[in-house]
């Protein structure tokens, strides 16, 4: 077995026993990057030198018997999480030279465990998109079929785990951007409860929806990363001071799923555009959970059908405000020639942003502009209340909700390139969790013509533990755990 194929848990055991060094492990991953990333395109920046230096530091800690769960483990980071002195582009031309002067809280936390960072991962520009085709730099390909998208916006984060070019990664999820690429690439991805993980140092897209989370080869690894990144942070005013359980320990204790109530939204099976094979795989997964002792119960999330419309008012509105900061003054690329200050703003932004970002800024600016605010932003915010109420009612009778992640397996690169609305509609199953702030996880549940399919589980606020438990039990009972495609 090649070292890059190890799970985090397996690697940690070998490191602790000093059977391998972090340097060997990291070198194996870097060699694999050199061998396959030309095809996959998951990385924007590979930090060979930094990774090897961090591996050395980790090996010293390990020698001293100070091995934490992620000590010496090579991880990839989505390129919108700030890393001190390491290029952080957000997949955008306008930040193509941006070297943050500080670490995001999640990076600080991982560094305190002596994790190793292999580099920064490709994404849709400013996380706007579901295919990673909106990156200003390159496309990322799905490791299971290089002619297809890896999903998005955390496409690099999912493809890199699937391709074995990092052991785990961090992504961000504003409307499904961790869960959907995880589903398309056959890996596990979790969007934690809003407020569980600090957003300090996460470049903002839609601040009321954004959340950082892990992508990993299996549920156990996902829990290990959750343990490292969760917790209150005074530097994020929306971070919540809520007790963080030991997720890894909870999985090992494994309470099983007997008697657990799984809610099945009655609206979801009739969703327009739902691929029959996806529907079948998800229904089989639910049947498997019943076999393990869980009970299913029909629930209703009646306002889900308005989630896409509400989201595509709220997220662009917040984005139009958040992205006003890119004006060529404090950071990023400034236009070369301008007549005056206003002209400099215009040219900098026009040259620096791609089409999808411009579209969303225009939609958001329109929705917030005088005379339209009530019809768009206020209306969508009221629908958001109704969607949250749906979840509240559903969780009175069930513990988790099961659904598909994406309506179809990964589409071909270029398939929806000129039809933004078609791309937006594919977010139908994932958006509600962001609007309601609840946690969600994607776990592999089958294949359609060799393309992975994911099962989504959504839970109560701050109850990631139950989600991980259900996902873990399902994973143990099935055979869909990641098998790394050869690619060479």
């Amino acid at each position: 077995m090649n070292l890059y194929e190890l799970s985090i848990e397996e690697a940690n055991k070998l490191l602790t026993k000093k059977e391998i060094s972090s340097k060997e492990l990291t070198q194996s991953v870097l060699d694999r990057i050199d061998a396959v990333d030309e095809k996959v395109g998951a990385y924007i920046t590979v930090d060979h030198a930094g990774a090897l230096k961090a591996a050395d530091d980790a090996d010293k800690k390990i020698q001293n018997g100070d091995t934490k769960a992620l000590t010496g483990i090579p991880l990839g980071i989505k390129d919108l999480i700030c890393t001190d002195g390491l290029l952080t582009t957000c997949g955008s031309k306008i930040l193509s030279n941006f070297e943050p002067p500080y670490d995001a809280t999640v990076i600080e936390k991982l560094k305190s465990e002596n994790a190793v960072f292999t580099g920064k991962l490709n994404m849709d520009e400013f996380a706007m998109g579901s295919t990673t085709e909106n990156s200003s730099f390159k496309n990322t390909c799905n490791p299971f079929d290089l002619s297809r998208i890896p999903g998005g916006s955390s496409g690099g984060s999912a493809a890199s785990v699937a391709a074995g070019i990092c052991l785990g990664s961090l992504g961000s999820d504003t409307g499904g951007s961790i869960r959907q690429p995880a589903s398309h690439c056959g890996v596990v991805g979790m969007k934690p409860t809003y407020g569980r993980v600090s957003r300090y140092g996460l470049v903002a897209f839609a601040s009321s929806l954004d959340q950082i989370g892990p992508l990993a080869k299996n549920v156990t690894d996902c829990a290990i990363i959750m343990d490292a990144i969760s917790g209150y942070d005074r530097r994020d005013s929306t971070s919540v001071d809520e007790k963080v359980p030991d997720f890894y320990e909870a999985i090992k204790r494994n309470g099983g799923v007997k008697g657990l109530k799984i809610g099945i939204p009655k609206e979801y099976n009739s969703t327009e555009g739902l691929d029959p094979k996806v529907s079948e795989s998800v229904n089989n997964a639910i049947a498997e959970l019943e076999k393990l002792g869980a009970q299913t119960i029909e629930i209703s999330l009646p306002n889900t059908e308005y989630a896409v419309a509400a989201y595509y008012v709220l997220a662009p509105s917040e984005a139009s405000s958040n992205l006003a900061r890119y004006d060529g003054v404090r950071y990023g690329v400034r236009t070369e020639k301008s007549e005056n200050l206003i002209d400099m703003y215009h040219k900098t932004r026009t040259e620096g942003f791609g089409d999808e970002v411009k579209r969303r800024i225009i939609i958001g600016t329109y929705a917030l502009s005088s005379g339209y605010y009530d019809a768009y932003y206020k209306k969508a915010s009221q629908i958001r209340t109704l969607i949250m109420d749906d979840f509240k009612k559903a969780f009175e009778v069930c513990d988790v909700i099961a659904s598909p992640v994406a309506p179809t397996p990964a589409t071909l690169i270029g398939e929806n390139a000129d039809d933004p609305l078609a791309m937006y509609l594919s977010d139908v199953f994932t958006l509600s969790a962001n609007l309601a702030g609840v946690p969600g996880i994607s776990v592999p549940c089958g294949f359609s013509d060799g393309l992975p399919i994911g099962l989504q589980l959504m839970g109560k606020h701050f109850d990631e533990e139950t989600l991980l438990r259900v996902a873990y039990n399902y994973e143990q009972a099935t055979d869909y755990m990641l098998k790394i495609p050869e690619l060479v």
Partner: protein
Amino acid sequence: MKITKDEVLYVAKLARLNLSDDEVEKFAGQIGDVLSYIETLNKVDTEGINPTSHANFLSNAFRKDEVKENFGVEKALSNAPLKENGHFVVPKIVG
């Protein structure tokens, strides 16, 4: 069309973006489709429903106004496209 080309141009100007004629044409169509889809929200009666702007239950997150760690002028300016004597440099604003 749900949004006219003039409206697209006007909103783009508010957002400090220049658009070519082709882009105005393309965006007006695409954004028009999105806005038409958003109209489905009007099917829902939201009379008396409180709007939600945030997904958790915090109200205000106050903290003491204390000086904590900071990274200093040099680092803060490290990404500035143009700087001089510890300041950001911008094109001339007043004539």
